[in-house]
């Protein structure tokens, strides 16, 4: 028997983590109302709400007509009337239908009323970048929301983070956009049994390393881990950092890592151009220029609308592309 007793854990898939955090918060806070389409007995397009309707009934699991814009507006109205709204926009692509309500209303009411109104609202969307559902059902649009002050953006890469971040989100008095990649839903992790929250703006060092830093988002985190394991065998030691929230963005952890490794690659499914990685790259070179042995590289979705079919993965980042990019950085003398 070892000296230290490991904290007890249990196995949880990311989908279950989201469901659990929602159920827990609804149990505790009767003012939480869920709004959206198909969230009742059906349990949501991705099954994230399964069981909630039975537990909390139709008033609180409020299934409504197919109109995302007014649905978000109703959520904002609930939020400013003293409730806490959770609004489902099933696929992130459909946020386009509700952008005014998200960006001009919910994100700004607290500001332009000088704090008189608060908007405790969480919007949840699933990103299906790798399911091959075609150009209108595949987009990772987190960069848009990072760009808008007044929105917090959480983007977990697994069950542990999803649970902790969702708990935090459901206590935050601001608009939070919570982004889940469907490819991670079934992934299981050992999750602490004890209650914990994960504060926004705290990145996680997924894996320590010394030769290069990979800043990875969402579904790229497990892929980055695989790439790092492969490179380990070649003697290249890769540190992986998952920012977990894009707004706020924990540059301290990222820069600390880059300070150590001198090399950085940023990777995500979203299109590279004006994607979340552009901001991360811009900040790394602003804040850690002296540490850099070479440019910060990006391994991102190509600037092509996402086609239907599984070939979509060919224009998304993968292990091989990431390895190649890290090798370039490590091998080339800049």
């Amino acid at each position, binding site marked *: 028997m070892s000296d230290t007793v490991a904290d007890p854990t249990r196995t949880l898939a990311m989908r279950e983590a989201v469901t659990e955090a929602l159920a827990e918060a609804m149990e505790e806070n009767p003012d939480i109302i869920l709004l959206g389409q198909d969230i009742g007995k059906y349990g949501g397009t991705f099954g994230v709400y399964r069981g909630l309707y039975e537990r909390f009934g139709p008033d609180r699991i409020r299934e409504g007509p197919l109109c995302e814009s007014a649905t978000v507006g109703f959520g904002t*109205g609930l939020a*400013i009337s*003293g409730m806490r709204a959770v609004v489902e926009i099933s696929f992130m692509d459909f946020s386009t239908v509700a952008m005014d*309500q998200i960006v*001009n209303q919910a994100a700004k009411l607290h500001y332009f009323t*000088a704090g*008189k109104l608060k908007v405790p609202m969480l919007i949840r969307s699933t990103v299906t970048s790798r399911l091959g559902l075609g150009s209108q059902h595949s987009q990772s649009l987190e960069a848009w929301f990072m760009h808008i002050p007044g929105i917090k953006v959480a983007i977990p890469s697994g069950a542990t983070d999803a649970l902790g971040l969702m708990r935090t989100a459901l206590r935050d008095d601001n608009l939070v956009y919570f982004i889940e990649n469907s490819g991670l839903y079934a992934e299981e992790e050992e999750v602490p049994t004890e209650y914990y929250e994960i504060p926004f703006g705290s990145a996680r060092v997924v894996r320590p390393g010394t030769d290069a830093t990979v800043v990875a988002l969402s579904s790229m985190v497990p892929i980055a881990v695989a790439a790092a394991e492969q490179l380990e065998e070649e003697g290249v030691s890769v540190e992986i950092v998952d920012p977990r929230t894009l707004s706020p963005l924990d540059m301290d952890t990222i820069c600390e890592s880059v300070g150590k490794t001198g090399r950085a690659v940023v990777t995500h499914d979203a299109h590279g151009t004006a994607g979340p990685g552009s901001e991360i790259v811009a900040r790394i070179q602003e804040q850690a220029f002296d540490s850099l042995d070479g440019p910060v590289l990006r391994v991102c979705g190509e600037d092509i609308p996402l086609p239907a079919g599984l070939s979509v993965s060919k224009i998304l980042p993968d292990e091989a592309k990431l390895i190649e990019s890290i090798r370039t950085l490590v091998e080339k003398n800049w």
Partner: protein
Amino acid sequence: MPDEANGDSLSPEGEVELYFKMCLIRAVEEHVVSAASIGLVPGSTHVSIGQEAITVGACSALDPKDLMLATYRGHGAFLANGGDIKELMAEIMLREPGCCAGKGGTMHLSDPEHGTLLTSAIVASQIPIAGGVALGCKLRNTGQVVMTFFGDGAACEGEFFETMNMAKIWNIPLVMVCENNGYALATPISKSQATPDIADRAKGFDMPAEIVDGNDVIEVRNAVARAVNRARSDGGPTLIECKTVRYGMHSTRSPGYYDNKEDANAWRDVDPIPRFRAALIEREVALPAALEEAEARAKMEALDAREFAQAAPLTSIETIRANVFAE
């Protein structure tokens, strides 16, 4: 709140109070126009001159606990709903003591204490938000009714319809008051509406709707009171279309467009203030002197508020940087 209200249910003092409020709004708006003309309201401001009967009549049918959301043309609604005139003027002139600390400006007012939650500058955007507030009131059984103002232009935006559908399905205590002033910026309703009556739009949702003369404060009050009663007794939402005539311009920045000078001046012929004054005198509710006194008092208050605002400090950079996120 008047019960199946009509003019008679109001005391004479009550009617004079409505008159006073209309005069107050008019006086404030005239100061806003003049302040804008000398650069004190940079950008643009949309006054509600000529539409005072709607905001005053409608808000008079609410209980103090009720809630209201309006548009960028919201000074009148803010005052009609009991908002502080000095905070309003200071907000319009972007000063620290403004109701939104001078960060919202003319288009973004908020005064939850008196039931005015917000005014929004994206046409129609406040309609579903009002729906959500009404849903919240219903879920928490607060007995509150929620009212939202919007224009004829807003009645072209999808959210108006989406909200009617949801409001009807969920049977929420929502009163939707359309101020149909005949124009959306430079677009007359003939170019923007499939039928001239916005009230028609409620038909497809089996939602009760009424058309009223928006320049008759008592008629507006009565219609809204019926809708408020319906909402309060769990009878669901109502659409009320108030026909009125726009005050010769869209905003101080955007004049709007009229085919001819007569159209631009048409509002004067139906100006709700002289009309209500004449009715009060004819119905012997008040003597001309009492109404003159009310008008003079309104002008004085407005002037005071303007002077207060002009003397107040402009919003500081610290204030501007605050409130991006709630703590």
